[in-house]
């Protein structure tokens, strides 16, 4: 990670997620941004907070059969199924090049057992190119296995504890919206040692092709992202922010600064842009610029001053 030059004048949009100081509060969502190089022709990566890499698993995965994407009203259904080369090949072939990224690089770890999470986290976190780890315990696209962790307080706790034990780097745990009480899960994960929470992963959904009378996705069901889920995601952040004292990375349908501010005012210390990049690759820049103007117009010195401002029950970040 190369440090961005902080702007000498104007409001600061810097933030802190665990031990990670970010010059901008904009992370790029796991699975949506590759490792950054795909988007480098369109946006200055030095202006973004960080990239969350595509989730990696213990063994290589071919991923789900296509089709893997369906466009829905203001949303996107995906069922990629964690296609990745597996941690061995990943460490050997891919990780070295992440050193060149002019922003934070956050590894994402997915698994099918508590042991998977510990194993992959330990190996990935050991690499200098990786600034932090996000624990994807909420992928809805691998049968019910992945999802189960974030929907069950006991499993969520175990996976978090297992990963915590093997790294001192910032540990972000990614929660699922497919629960009745996300605050309860958040509390357990905080207690198990997470440094931050990513809120939220995709909402489970599906679409049917009425011509063929078959599900549109090769995997039958998928995860819904994009503007359609923003109201669901904002509420999830709102509720989690009242329950924990670790920072939140808000996400779900963010395309511009107004969207990002909904999450920040609800209590998120940073945001993540996934599907928004598919609408317009300039989104990271648009969001950062818009946040700066918002603060400047109101003569607010720092983004930190507005975190949780709309949420009377916001517990504050420790």
């Amino acid at each position, binding site marked *: 990670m190369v440090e961005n030059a902080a702007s000498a004048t104007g409001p600061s949009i810097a933030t802190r997620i665990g031990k990670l100081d970010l010059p901008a509060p904009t992370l790029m969502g796991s699975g949506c941004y590759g490792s950054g190089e795909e988007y480098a022709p369109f946006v200055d990566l030095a202006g973004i907070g960080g990239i969350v890499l595509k989730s990696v698993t213990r063994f290589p995965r071919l991923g789900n059969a296509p*089709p893997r994407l369906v466009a829905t009203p203001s949303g996107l259904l995906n069922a990629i199924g964690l296609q990745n080369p597996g941690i*061995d090949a990943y460490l050997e072939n891919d990780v070295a090049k992440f050193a060149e990224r002019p922003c934070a690089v956050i590894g994402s770890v997915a698994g099918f057992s508590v042991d998977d999470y510990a194993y992959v986290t330990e190996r990935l976190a050991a690499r200098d190119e990786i600034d932090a780890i996000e624990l994807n315990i909420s992928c809805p696209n691998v049968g019910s296995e992945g999802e189960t962790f974030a929907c069950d307080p006991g499993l969520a706790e175990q996976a978090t504890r297992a990963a915590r034990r093997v790294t001192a780097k910032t540990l972000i745990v990614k929660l699922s919206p497919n629960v009745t009480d996300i605050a309860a899960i958040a509390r357990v994960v905080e207690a198990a040692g997470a440094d931050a929470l990513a809120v939220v992963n995709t909402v489970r959904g599906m679409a049917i092709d009425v011509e063929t009378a078959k599900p549109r996705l090769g995997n039958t069901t998928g995860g819904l992202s994009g503007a359609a889920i923003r109201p669901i995601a904002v509420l999830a952040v709102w509720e989690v922010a009242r329950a924990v004292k670790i920072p939140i990375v808000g996400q779900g349908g963010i395309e511009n600064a107004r969207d990002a501010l909904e999450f920040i005012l609800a209590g998120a210390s940073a945001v993540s842009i996934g599907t928004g990049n598919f*609408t317009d690759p300039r989104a990271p820049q648009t969001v950062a610029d818009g946040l700066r103007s918002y603060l400047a117009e109101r003569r607010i010195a720092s983004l930190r001053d507005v975190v949780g401002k709309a949420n009377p029950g916001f517990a504050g970040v420790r």
Partner: protein
Amino acid sequence: MPALETSPAIHRTVVSDRREPAPGISVVGLYAPRLAGATRPGQFAMVVPPGGERAATALGIYEAQGDRISLMLVAVGPRTRELATLPLGAQLDLFGPLGNGFDLAALGDEVALVAGGVGLASLLLPARELLARGARVYLFYGARTAGALVDADLFAELGARVYVATDDGTLGWAGYVTDLLRETAMHFSGIAACGPSPMLRAVARVAADLGVRAQLSLEETFACGVGACWGCVVGLSRESAQAPRFPAPAPGETRDYVHARICKEGPVFWAHELRW
């Protein structure tokens, strides 16, 4: 297909002209000087939705001359409908050119181009370049009905021989264009095709039967269009030069194919290398 060297960028374009050659089909001309110069045959662009809230739309680059490109589109859903009603002078942002186009050199000098519907959009630039270098070009062009066979004359004027087919028999061969291709029993040095998936599968079969190699430009729902999301994959032989590097199959993995990204490794693939 060999990876192309053109480097993609975001372009702010302006609608310079438009026509509706058939109901529901639009050709939208855009003032886009840098893009026009950079585009190679078979590449596409991602169009940023003017109102946001949807993923960008993948569209083949139809014409590319001087300071202008054009897109040919069928209004099937919200995004294409929005694009089909853009007024003259409207601003439109798009990023590209993207993807690897056709490998025209590998097609030889007797080339069949096979178009299904607006699949035609990806075949004008190849036709022009093939004809320019002295190849003979045979356009096999199929559509639902005569009225939907747009711009066939444009190809004829360039010097291509045009064979048309309609599902309803209102013009040319009555039936699938791929059956027409098979029936003509002509000799081709190579085939390049673009159109709906069932048609492309048929092209692959006909090509295999005729003993000719075919390049297919695939369509799939895209999200990023730049290879970042792995959403647009197709099964591809591990042996293909286009196969993404996947060092070792997972334990117990018996499948001999990998999932290649249509937007990045494609959109054009050799028919015989696809596992779909």
